[in-house]
C-alpha cells in the first residue's frame, strides 16, 4: 500500500507546474471528445468522505455515470464501488486514470488540498471539465496555476462553493443588492463545531493520510475546509475581493499532535469599506454555521438550510424603504428591540418558491453538468474559487504568525 509520503515523492515532478507544453496540450484537447452528448462520464480523484458524497449527488443527475475512481488508499475502491453499484475501474495513480479512462468527460477533484493544484491542472490539460472542491489550491501559486490553465483549456471549471447555488442565498443577495437592508458594511461568518475533527485511523502509519486536515503540509485547516464558504459569501455580497486580513488562532482544545489550529479568527477588509469577521471553533457548537449580514437598515442570517431577514428600528440612518418597514412591523419582526438587549423575536423567513428548493450541493453539481451540456460558464467559476482560496491562503499567513497581511504584497496585479 502506498503511503502518503511515497505518493508525495512519486508525484513531485509534476507539482506546481504543467508537464505538457502548449502544443502537447492542444493535441490532447483535439484527441479528447469535445462534444458532450447526453451521456456524461465522470471520474473521481479522491474517494474520501467528500468524494463519496459528491458521487452520490452526481449519480442523481440524468445521463451521468461515474466511470473511474482514483485514490492512493485502496480500501476506498470498494467504498466507491458500493456507491456506483458497479465494478467501476479504480486507479492508484491519477495519471494512470487520465491516460486510461478515455471515456471521461469530467473529473471531480476531492483530494487533500495540497494536491488540488496538481490534480486540477492535469485534468484540465487532458481536456476534461473539472468540478474542483474548495479551496481550489493551498498556495497562491496553486491558485494562479489553476486559473491560468482553466482559462486556456477551453474547458469549464467549477469550484465546490455550493452556496452560490442555494436559492435562499441567491434571493438574499438579490434583495441586499436592491438596498433592502440599507448599506451593507459587515459580514460575520461562523462555523463552530464541537468535536475533535479527527477521523478514525485503522493504523497509526495512516494518520497523516486519513487525518490530512490536521497537518499543514496538506491542509489549510479550519479557514480552508470551513471558512472558504463564508469568505466566498462575503466576496459575493461585497462583489469584490478582500485586500487585507488580520488573524489569530491556536490549539486550545486538542493537544494531540495536530498542526492546524482548532480555533481561528480572521478579519478581512474590502476596498469599498466592507469588513468580514470570521470565526471557527471546534470546542463549542452553540452558533453552528451562520453568515450574518449587517446593513444600516437590517440584517440577514443565512444558514445551511434557510435564510431570514430582520429589519432595524426606523432611525435616521435607516435606508429601508417605508413599505418594508411596514412588512417588518406587520410581522412584529422589528421595532420591538428594547434598548441594547439583543433582538430575540422572529424575522421574515426567505420563502423559496415551490419546486426550487434543493440541496445546494446537488444544485451545484446539476448546474455544472448543465454548463457542460449547454457550453455555459459556471456561476462559481475559477475566478470565484480563486478569490476565496487566496483569501484563505493569505488569511492563514496572518493566523499562523504574521497577524496582518496586505494582499497586494503577495498577489500579482490581476483581476
Amino acid at each position, binding site marked *: 500500500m502506498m503511503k502518503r509520503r511515497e505518493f508525495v515523492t512519486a508525484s513531485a515532478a509534476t507539482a506546481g507546474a504543467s508537464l505538457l507544453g502548449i502544443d502537447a496540450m492542444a493535441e490532447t484537447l483535439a484527441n479528447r471528445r469535445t462534444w458532450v452528448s447526453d451521456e456524461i462520464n465522470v471520474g473521481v480523484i479522491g474517494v474520501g*468522505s467528500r468524494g463519496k*458524497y459528491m458521487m*452520490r*449527488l452526481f*449519480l*442523481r*443527475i*440524468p445521463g451521468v455515470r461515474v466511470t473511474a475512481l482514483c485514490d492512493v488508499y485502496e480500501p476506498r475502491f470498494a*467504498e466507491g464501488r458500493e*456507491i*456506483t*453499484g458497479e465494478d467501476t475501474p479504480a486507479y492508484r495513480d491519477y495519471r494512470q486514470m487520465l491516460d486510461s479512462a478515455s471515456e471521461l468527460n469530467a473529473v471531480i477533484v476531492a483530494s487533500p488540498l495540497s494536491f488540488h493544484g496538481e490534480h486540477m491542472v492535469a485534468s484540465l490539460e487532458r481536456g476534461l471539465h473539472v468540478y474542483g472542491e474548495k479551496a481550489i489550491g493551498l498556495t497562491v501559486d496553486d491558485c494562479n496555476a489553476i486559473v491560468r490553465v482553466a482559462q486556456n483549456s477551453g474547458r469549464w471549471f467549477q469550484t465546490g462553493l455550493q452556496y452560490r447555488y442555494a436559492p435562499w442565498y441567491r434571493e438574499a443577495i438579490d434583495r441586499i443588492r436592491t438596498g433592502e437592508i440599507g448599506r451593507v458594511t459587515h459580514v460575520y461568518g461562523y462555523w463552530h463545531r464541537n*468535536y*475533535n475533527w*479527527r*477521523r*478514525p485511523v*485503522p493504523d497509526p502509519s495512516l494518520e497523516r493520510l486519513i487525518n490530512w486536515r490536521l497537518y499543514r503540509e496538506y491542509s489549510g485547516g479550519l479557514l480552508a475546509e470551513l471558512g472558504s464558504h463564508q469568505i466566498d459569501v462575503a466576496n459575493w455580497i461585497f462583489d469584490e475581493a478582500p485586500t487585507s486580513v488580520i488573524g489569530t488562532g491556536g490549539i486550545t482544545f486538542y493537544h*494531540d499532535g495536530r498542526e492546524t489550529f482548532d480555533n481561528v479568527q480572521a478579519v478581512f477588509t474590502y476596498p469599498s469599506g466592507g469588513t468580514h469577521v470570521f470565526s471557527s471553533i471546534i470546542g463549542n457548537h452553540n452558533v453552528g454555521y451562520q453568515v450574518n449580514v449587517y446593513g444600516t437598515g437590517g440584517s440577514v442570517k443565512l444558514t445551511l*438550510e434557510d435564510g431570514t431577514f430582520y429589519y432595524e428600528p426606523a432611525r435616521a440612518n435607516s435606508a429601508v424603504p417605508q413599505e418594508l418597514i411596514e412588512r417588518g412591523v406587520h410581522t412584529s419582526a422589528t421595532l420591538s428591540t428594547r434598548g441594547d438587549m439583543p433582538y430575540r423575536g422572529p424575522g421574515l423567513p426567505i420563502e*423559496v418558491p*415551490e*419546486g426550487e*428548493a*434543493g*440541496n*445546494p450541493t*446537488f444544485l451545484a453539481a446539476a448546474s455544472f453538468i448543465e454548463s457542460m451540456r449547454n457550453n455555459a460558464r459556471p456561476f462559481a467559476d475559477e475566478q470565484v474559487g480563486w478569490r476565496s482560496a487566496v483569501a484563505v491562503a493569505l488569511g492563514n499567513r496572518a493566523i499562523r504568525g504574521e497577524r496582518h497581511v496586505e494582499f497586494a504584497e503577495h498577489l500579482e496585479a490581476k483581476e
Partner: protein
Amino acid sequence: MGTTVEIYLYASSGERAAELLEAAFAEIERVEAALSAYRPTSEISRINATAARAPVVTDPEVFGLIALALDYGRRSDGAFDITVGPLVKAWGFFRADGCHPSPAELSEARAKIGWQRVALDHAERTIRFLTPGIELDLGGIGKGFALDRAAHILRRHGVTTALLGAGRSSYLAIGAPSGTEGWAITVPDPSDSARALSEVQLRDRSLSTSGADQKYFDLDGRRYSHVIDPRTGQPTTGMIQVTVTALTAIDSDALSTAVFVLGPERGADLIEDTAGATALLVAGYEGEHRVVAIEWSEAFDPRGR
C-alpha cells in the same frame, strides 16, 4: 427521523470511541439529510416534488431503498406502504377535531396513496408517480436504514461490539459484550412498563417494536391506534404491540409496522417468509391481551395481562 440515536461501543480508548461515534453519527446525519420528508433539501423531497411530472433519476442507494420499501408493500399486500402520508395527515387533522374524516375526505386522501402507483425503472434508475398527489415517506424504515448504515461504518472501522438504538423502538447489535450471549434488550409489557414481556439476547441482529408508545385515541366509544391501515383507510384496531427481530434493522422496522397492520395470522405468514425473522405480538381482545409468538425462541410471559 426526528428521533434520538444512542450508540454503545467498546473501543481501546475514550478518544478512539469518540472518533468512532462521530463517524457513525456523521453517517446517520447523511442518511437523515437524504431521506427526511420534512427537509426541503432532502432527496426524498426532491423526488416528491417532481416524480408526478416526469421520471426522476436518483442514486443507487436511494433507489435501492425505495425499491426495497415497495417490495415490502407487495409482500404485505399493502399493509406496509411508504405512500400512506396523506391518509395519516387526514386522520391526524380530524383527530384533533375529535371526529372522523368524512367518506369523501377519506376517499380524497386514499386517491393519493398506493405503493403500486410508484413506478420504478431499474435500468434508468428512475422513480415515477403514476398519479398526482403521491408522497413518499420513508419514516417506516428510515430509522432502521440509518442504523444499518451506521453499523456498516462501525464494522468497516473494525468495531466488533456495539449496540445502536433509535428512539427506544429500534435496536441493532454488533457482536456481544464480552462473556455474554448478546446485548440484553427488554420487550416491555404494554400494560405495565415496569414488567418485561420477554428479554432478547441480541447479537448481530436487529429488533424493532411498533406500538410501544401506547398512543391511542378514542372516537365514538372505540379505541384506535395511531397506525393507519393503508388498505382500508382506517386506523388499525386489535393490535397492541409488535416486536420483530431480523437480520437487518430495515427488515425489523418494516416487518413490525406491517405485522401491526396485518394482525396475527397474515403477520405470521410474512414473518415465516422472511429469512431470520421472529416476532412477539400482543393482540387485544375485549380487554384481554393475547400474546402470540412467531418463531420466537426466547421465554415470554404468555399471560400478557
